[in-house]
C-alpha cells in the first residue's frame, strides 16, 4: 500500500517535470518563429552594412559571383557550388548565405574575420528567420514615389492640431508614450521666434503673447514672423552650409571672392517665398530657364561656391575635374540625399548607382566654360569666369535685394560651353585616366532619365528633379526642414537616403508631408507653417526620467527637443538683446573681433586675405550669418560652436558641448562688450532698482520672467561684485574697457561693472543659448 503510494507520487512528479519542460521547449520555439521579419526594416540594413561591399551592386568588387541586393541573383544557384543557392527561400540548409554566416570555421565564416565586420548573433538569427519565412525582397523605400497614406486613428483625439500630429501620436501610442503638455507661452514664443527668424522676441511681444497665449494669437505670431525679412536669413543659414558658401576661394593661397550677392539672393528668395521648385531650378539651371533674367543667372552661383585653387603649378585638368566632382557630389547629397560620390571610382558598394551613372550625372556639370587655375593670386581675382558683373544701376532697378554700396561687383555663375565637352568615365576616378565617353543621365534606380522628356542639359536635370515620379527631391527637402525644427530628421541620416542610411522613424508622415508639399506647389512657408502649427511642435521640452529611459533620443517626439543654438544665432542673441544688433540685410561679409594672428599664422603671405583687417563701426554688430568666412582659417568662434568650414557640402551640423565654448562665452570681447553696453543702457534709463534692472536683462536675454530665486541669486552676485569694485579702485574701469562701442557717460563705474558682469552671467546660462 505504502509502496504503491510512493511510486504513484514519484511518477506523477516525474510526469509534471517532464511535461513542463516539453511545454516550455516547444512553446518557446513557436512564439519566436511567428515574429515576421521585414526586408526593409530588419534585413536590408544588415545585408547592406555587412555584405553588399562584396556581394552588392559593385560588379568589380563582387566575390564568388554572388549578388545579394537583387532577389533573382540571390536566389540563383551558386557558381562555386552548383548544388547550392545563394538564398533558397524557406530552406536554410540549401542557402549558401545561411551556411556561411553560421559557420564557425573562421576560414569559411562570412563576413570573413579579416573584413572586421562580424555579424552579431541577433543579426544571424534575423537572416535565418527571413530565409525561413521565404526571403522576400522589397524595393528600397526611398526609391518608391511617396504616396499619401490615410491619416492614422488615434486614441487621444483632442490632442492633434493638424495632420502631422495624428501620425506622430499614432507612433507614440504604439509605444506606450504620451505627448507632453503644451509649452508655456514664454518659451513657446522664444522657440518659434528663434526657429522662424533666428532672433528673440522683444519684451513687448512677450507681454502681448503672455497676456493672450491663445491659438489665435499664436497663429498671428506665425504670420508676423513669416513675414519678417529675418525669416529669409534664418532659412539661409543651413542653405549656406549645404551650398558650401564662403568668402574666400579655399585651397592654399585662399584669396578673397565675392559670392555674397548670391547669398543675398538666397535670403531674398526665401523671403519672397519662391516655391522650392523655382528656388532650386534657378540655382541648377537659371541660365537655361530664364536666359535673359539676371536674377535667375545670379541664382546659378550655387554651383560655383566650391573651392577654386590659386596654387601656381597645379595641373589644370586635375582641378577642373575636382570642381565638377564637387558640383556632382553637392547636387546628389543636397537634393537626392544620396552619397553618389562613392560611385566616382567604382560602382557604388551599397546603392544601385553605377560608375557610368555617376559620370552621366557628372556630364551635366562638366560643361562649364572654366579653367582649373585662372590666374595668379596676386592678381586678386574676386570671381573667376564665367561671371556676371552687377552694377549699382542694375541693383537699383532690378536686383534691389542686393546690398551693394556703390561700385560694380562680379559674381561667379554657371555658363556652359558652346561646344559640348565630352565626358569620360574616369578609371579609379583619376582625371588622367579617361575611359569611354558617356552622355547625360541620372541613376535609373531613382528615376530613368528619358531623353524624350528631358533635354540634355541642366534644364533637363532640373525637370527630372521636379518630375512627379521623382521619389527623392521632395522627401529630402521636407526632411531637412523638419530637422531644422526638431534637431533630427524623420530620416536621421538626412544626407543619406540610400541603403546604408537610417530608416525613417515616421515613414508615413514623411511621405504625407512630401506629397502634400508637392501638391501645394512646393510652398516652403506653407510647409513651415504646418510644422510650427502642429501640437507636436508646441509641446513642452520638460522630460521625465521615464521618458528619457524609454526614448533617449526623442525619436518618437513625445516632447520638444532642447537644442543649443547654432553659432550664428548665439551671436545674434547677444547682439540683439544688448541692443547692439544692426539688423541690415545682406551685403559684403563682415570681419568682427577675432584674436590676433589667426590669419597671419596660416597664410602663404599672398593675396588680400593675408592679414585680418578687422572692420569697425556698424560692421561689428551684424548678424552671425554675415561673418566673413575665410576657408583656410574660419572664425574660431564659429568652428568651436560646430560651424562647418565650408570646404564641402554639409547637410547637418553636429551639436557639441566643450570647454572651449565656455571660454568663448565667458571671455570673447564681443560678449563682454555686449554685457557692458547692455549695463550702460539699463543704467542710463534706470527704470527701477537693481533687482528690476536684472529682471529686465534676464527677460530680454532668456525671454521669460526671472523667478524670484533667480533674481535674488543674481542680485547677490551683483552686490558682491559692487562691493569688490568699490574696494579695489580702478578695477571697474578695466572691466568696462571692452569693445569699440562708445561709452555712455555714467558716474558710478562700479555700478556699471557689477551689472555688466551680472549680465555676462545671464548670457552664460545654459537656457540662454538653448532653444527650449
Amino acid at each position, binding site marked *: 500500500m505504502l509502496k504503491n503510494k*510512493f511510486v504513484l*507520487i*514519484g511518477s506523477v*512528479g516525474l510526469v509534471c517535470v*517532464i511535461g513542463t519542460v516539453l511545454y516550455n*521547449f516547444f512553446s518557446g520555439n513557436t512564439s519566436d518563429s511567428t515574429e515576421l521579419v521585414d526586408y526593409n526594416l530588419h534585413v536590408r540594413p544588415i545585408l547592406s552594412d555587412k555584405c553588399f561591399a562584396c556581394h552588392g551592386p559593385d560588379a568589380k568588387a563582387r566575390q564568388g559571383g554572388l549578388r545579394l541586393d537583387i532577389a533573382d541573383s540571390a536566389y540563383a544557384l551558386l557558381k562555386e557550388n552548383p548544388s547550392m543557392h545563394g538564398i533558397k527561400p524557406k530552406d536554410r540548409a540549401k542557402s549558401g548565405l545561411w551556411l556561411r554566416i553560421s559557420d564557425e570555421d*573562421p576560414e569559411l565564416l562570412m563576413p570573413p*574575420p579579416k573584413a572586421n565586420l562580424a555579424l552579431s548573433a541577433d543579426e544571424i538569427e534575423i537572416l535565418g528567420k527571413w530565409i525561413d519565412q521565404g526571403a522576400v525582397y522589397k524595393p528600397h523605400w526611398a526609391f518608391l514615389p511617396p504616396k499619401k497614406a490615410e491619416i492614422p486613428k488615434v486614441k487621444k483625439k483632442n490632442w492633434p492640431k493638424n495632420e502631422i500630429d495624428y501620425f506622430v501620436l499614432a507612433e507614440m501610442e504604439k509605444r506606450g508614450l504620451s505627448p507632453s503638455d503644451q509649452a508655456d507661452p514664454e518659451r513657446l514664443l522664444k522657440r518659434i521666434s528663434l526657429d522662424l527668424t533666428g532672433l528673440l522676441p522683444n519684451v513687448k511681444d512677450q507681454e502681448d503673447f503672455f497676456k493672450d497665449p491663445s491659438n489665435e494669437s499664436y497663429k498671428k505670431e506665425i504670420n508676423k514672423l513669416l513675414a519678417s525679412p529675418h525669416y529669409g536669413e534664418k532659412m539661409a543659414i543651413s542653405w549656406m552650409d549645404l551650398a558650401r558658401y564662403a568668402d574666400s576661394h579655399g585651397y592654399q593661397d585662399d584669396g578673397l571672392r565675392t559670392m555674397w550677392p548670391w547669398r543675398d539672393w538666397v535670403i531674398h528668395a526665401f523671403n519672397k517665398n519662391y516655391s522650392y521648385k523655382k528656388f532650386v531650378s534657378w540655382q541648377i539651371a537659371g541660365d537655361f530657364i530664364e536666359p535673359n533674367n539676371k536674377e535667375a543667372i545670379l541664382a546659378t552661383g550655387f554651383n560655383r561656391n566650391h573651392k577654386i585653387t590659386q596654387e601656381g603649378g597645379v595641373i589644370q585638368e586635375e582641378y577642373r575635374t575636382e570642381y565638377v566632382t564637387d558640383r556632382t557630389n553637392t547636387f546628389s547629397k543636397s537634393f537626392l540625399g544620396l552619397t553618389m560620390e562613392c560611385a566616382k571610382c567604382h560602382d557604388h558598394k551599397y546603392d544601385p548607382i553605377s560608375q557610368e551613372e555617376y559620370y552621366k550625372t557628372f556630364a551635366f556639370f562638366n560643361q562649364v566654360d572654366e579653367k582649373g587655375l585662372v590666374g595668379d593670386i596676386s592678381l586678386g581675382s574676386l570671381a573667376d569666369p564665367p561671371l556676371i558683373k552687377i552694377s549699382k544701376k542694375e541693383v537699383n532697378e532690378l536686383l534691389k535685394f542686393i546690398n551693394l554700396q556703390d561700385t560694380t561687383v562680379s559674381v561667379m555663375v554657371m555658363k556652359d560651353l558652346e561646344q559640348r565637352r565630352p565626358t569620360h568615365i574616369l578609371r579609379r576616378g583619376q582625371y588622367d585616366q579617361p575611359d569611354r565617353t558617356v552622355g547625360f543621365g541620372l541613376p535609373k534606380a531613382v528615376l530613368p532619365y528619358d531623353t524624350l522628356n528631358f533635354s540634355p542639359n541642366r534644364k533637363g536635370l532640373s525637370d527630372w528633379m521636379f518630375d512627379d515620379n521623382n521619389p527623392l527631391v521632395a522627401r529630402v527637402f521636407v526632411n531637412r526642414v523638419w530637422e531644422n525644427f526638431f534637431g533630427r530628421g524623420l530620416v536621421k541620416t538626412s544626407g543619406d537616403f540610400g541603403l546604408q542610411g537610417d530608416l525613417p522613424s515616421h515613414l508615413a508622415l514623411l511621405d504625407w508631408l512630401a506629397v502634400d508639399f508637392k501638391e501645394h506647389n512646393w510652398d516652403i512657408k506653407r510647409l513651415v507653417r504646418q510644422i510650427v502649427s502642429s501640437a507636436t511642435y508646441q509641446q513642452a521640452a520638460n522630460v521625465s526620467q521615464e521618458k528619457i529611459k524609454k526614448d533617449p533620443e526623442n525619436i518618437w517626439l513625445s516632447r520638444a527637443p532642447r537644442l543649443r543654438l547654432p553659432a550664428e544665432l548665439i551671436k545674434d542673441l547677444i547682439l540683439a538683446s544688448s541692443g547692439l544688433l544692426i539688423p541690415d540685410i545682406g551685403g559684403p561679409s563682415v570681419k568682427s573681433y577675432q584674436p590676433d594672428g589667426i590669419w597671419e599664422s596660416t597664410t602663404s603671405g599672398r593675396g588680400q586675405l*593675408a592679414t585680418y583687417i578687422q572692420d569697425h563701426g556698424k560692421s561689428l554688430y551684424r548678424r552671425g550669418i554675415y561673418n566673413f568666412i575665410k576657408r583656410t582659417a574660419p572664425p574660431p568662434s564659429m568652428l568651436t560652436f560646430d560651424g562647418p568650414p565650408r570646404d564641402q557640402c554639409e547637410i547637418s551640423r553636429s551639436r557639441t558641448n566643450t570647454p572651449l565654448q565656455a571660454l568663448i562665452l565667458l571671455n570673447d570681447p564681443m560678449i563682454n562688450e555686449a554685457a557692458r553696453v547692455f549695463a550702460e543702457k539699463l543704467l542710463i534709463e534706470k527704470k527701477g532698482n537693481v533687482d528690476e534692472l536684472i529682471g529686465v536683462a534676464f527677460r530680454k536675454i532668456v525671454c521669460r520672467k526671472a523667478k524670484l530665486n533667480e533674481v535674488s541669486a543674481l542680485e547677490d552676485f551683483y552686490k558682491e561684485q559692487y562691493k569688490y569694485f568699490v574696494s579695489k579702485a580702478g578695477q571697474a574701469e578695466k572691466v568696462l574697457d571692452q569693445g569699440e562701442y562708445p561709452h555712455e557717460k555714467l558716474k558710478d563705474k562700479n555700478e556699471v561693472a557689477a551689472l555688466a558682469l551680472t549680465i555676462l552671467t545671464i548670457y552664460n546660462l545654459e537656457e540662454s543659448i538653448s532653444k527650449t
Partner: protein
Amino acid sequence: MQGYKSWISNILIGANFLLFFLAISADKIVLPTFLSWTGHFHPLLLHLPLGIASFSIILWLFKRNFSGSSFNEIYELTLSLSAVSSVFTALLGLFLSKGQDYDAVMLRNHLWSGVALSFFTWFSWWAFTNLERVKPFWTYLQVFGLALMSFAGHAGGSLTHGADYLNFPDKKEIDEDVQAVITDSTSYFQLAIRPILEKKCVSCHKKDKAKGDLILASNPNTTSDVWVAKHANFTEMLVEMVQRIDLPITDKEHMPPRGKEPLEPQEIVTLKNWINAGGNTNEILASIEQNHVLFADKELLLQSGSKIKMYTFPFLSSKKLASLNDAFTVVRQIANESPALKADFFITKSFEISKLDKLSAAKEQIIHINLSKMPIRDEDLSMITLFSNLEKLILNQTDITDKGIPSLKKLNKIRVLSLSGTEISIKSVPVLAAMKSLEEVYLWHTNITESEFQDIVKKYKNIKWYFGFSPSSTDILPLNGPILENKSLVLMENDSIRFKKSISGAIIRYTDDGSEPDSLSSQVYSHPLVFSKPVTLSVKIFKPGWISSPTYTFAFFKAGLKPDSTRWLTSPEPEYLGAGVQSLTDNSLGKIDQFRAGNWLGYKNNRMETLFKFKPGDAAAIRFVSVHYGINVQSYILAPQYVEVWGGDSERSMTLIKKKVLPVLVKEKLNEVGTSAVILEVNKPTRYFKVIVKNVDKLPTFHPGRGDRGWIFIDEVFFSK
C-alpha cells in the same frame, strides 16, 4: 499544518529512491534527450540546497532567540526544504553528467557525495522530527553536514572549472612563468605557440581533465611526458592536431569544439606553420633568422600586440577604475586586453598625497606611475612601494632627495626610474645600482656632476644611465632681439615705449642717435621710455656667455594732430586709394607686405600733393611734419626723390617751408624692403600745409624695370608737436 509534511515525506522517499537507483546503474542507463537537457539546470538549482542548508545552520545557532515552539516549526520547514532541493539538485546533476565527457574519478566523487548529501538532508529532517535522542549530538551532525556539502561542492567546482579551481593559486610560480621577458634566447614555442595553447586548448587538455586522454601542459619542459598520451609519439600527436583543426566546425572531431572559443585565423596559421616546421619546442628566437620558415611569423608576433606581457592579476572592475579617476588623476588600462594600469597625475595645485593613497585600491594592477612635477616628498615614497608590480616610475621635478631613495628598494619589478630635475646626488647611485630589476635610470638635472657621470657609467654597467643635456662652455649662442611691447610705432599722447627681453639676465641697451649700441657705454633700458618728439632707437641685447643680438632699429612717431580737413590735390593710382584721403592722418601705419590694405596710398603717374587744413589752436602747436613711406625695391616701390612741405594762411598763399632730397638708389639696396620716414622740423605756425612727395622718374639701369617710373607708397603724414 501537518499536511505538507506527508507530501514532502512522500516526495523525498520517491525521489531519493529514484536517485539511488539511477546512481548505481549510472553506467548502463540511457536518458532521453530532454531529460539530459534538464540537467543543464543543475548548476542553477544547486544554489538552493546550499543556501537553505546554510540558513538552517544559522537558525540552529540562534535558536535561543525564538520563543516557544516557533523555532521547531521554522526549523523543520527549513530542513524539509533543504532535503527536497538537495534531492532534485542531485537528480539533475545526474542527468547532466550523462551528456558530458568528464573525468571519471572526479565525476564519481561528485556524484556520490551528492547522493550522500541528499540522503543526509533527508535523514536530518526525519531525525529532527522523530529521533529525540540525536538532539544532544545535533551540532556535530551539522558540522558533518557542512563538511559533506563542502566536499560535494568542491568536487563539482573542480569538475567544471578544473581541479585547482578552489586551490590557492601558487602565485610565485605563475608570475615567474608568465611574465618572463622575451629575449633572443626565449624559445619560439614560448613566444608563439604557448599563448595559443593556453588560451584555447589547455582548459580541457590538462592533467585532471585530460579530454581524449590528451594532455597539453602549458610548460613542457620536456616533451615526452606531458604532451603525449594516446599517441605513439609527439609528431603523431601534432598531425592529429592539424587534422582536427582543419575539420569543418560541424564535425564532432573538430577542435576546439563547438561552443568553445574558436582559433583565430592567424592562430591557425601560426600553429600550422610551426608544426610544419617540425614543431620544435626548444628552438630559440635568435636561431630563427631571415630565411627561416618561421621568420615572418616571428617578426609579426614581435611587432604585434602579442608581445604584451601577460599579467596574472585580475582586471579591476570598471566601476572601481572609474572611481580612481578625477579631473587631475588619470588611471587607464595600458591596452584593451590587459589588466595592467598606468596612472598619471596632472596639475601640481590639485595634488594631495591622499590621491596616491586612493590608488592603492589598484595596487596590484598599476605598473606605471607618472608623478612629474607633483609635490612628492621623501616620506611619500613609502606609499609608492605599495604598488608591488610597478615597472616604471617617473618622479621628475618632484621634491624627493637622497633620503627617500632607499625606500624604493622594495619595488622589485621596477625597470625604469626617472629622477630628472630632483635633488638626487651621487649618494643614491649605489642604492639604485643594487636594485636588481632596474634597467634604465634618468638623472638629468640633478646634483650629480659631469665628472661623476663618467664614473657611474663605468662602474655600474648593468643599468643604462641617462644624464641628458648639459651646456658646454664652447657652444656660444646668439641672443635674439628685444621684443617691442607697443602695438604701434605711433605714440599717443601719454604712451611710453616698452621693451621686453625674452631671456632672463640679459640687458637691453639702446641709443637714439643712430649709433650702434655697445655693451659698456650705451644706455641700459630699465623702465618704459618717454620721448617728446619722434625718435629712432637702435636696440641690442647683451648677456655674458652669449653672442649679443643683432641691432634692431625702431622709428617711433608721436601721434599727429588731426587736420580739420584734408584734400588730394593729385590723385593716387585707382587701385591703391587706401581707405581714402583720411588714411594719411589716421595715426595708423601700414604693413610692408600689404600694399593693398587700407593704409597705403600708391602713386606712380602723379607725385603726391595733398592739402591739410588745421584749426588755429592746433596749427600753432605743430613742430614736426613727418612723411612715412614704404620701400620694396624689387616691386618698383622706392623711397621718394624729395619731400617738400609748403605752408601758408590760405590755400593760395603757400610758401615752401622745408625740402629734403633723398639719396638715389644704389645697387646694394636692390633687395631692400621696409619702411622709413622723412622728418622735417617746421618752426613757422601756419594753418595750411601742402605736402609734396615726388617719386623717382626713372628706375636706374641695374633695376629690372630700368627706365620705368618708380612708385611711392605713403601711409601716413604726421603733424606733431
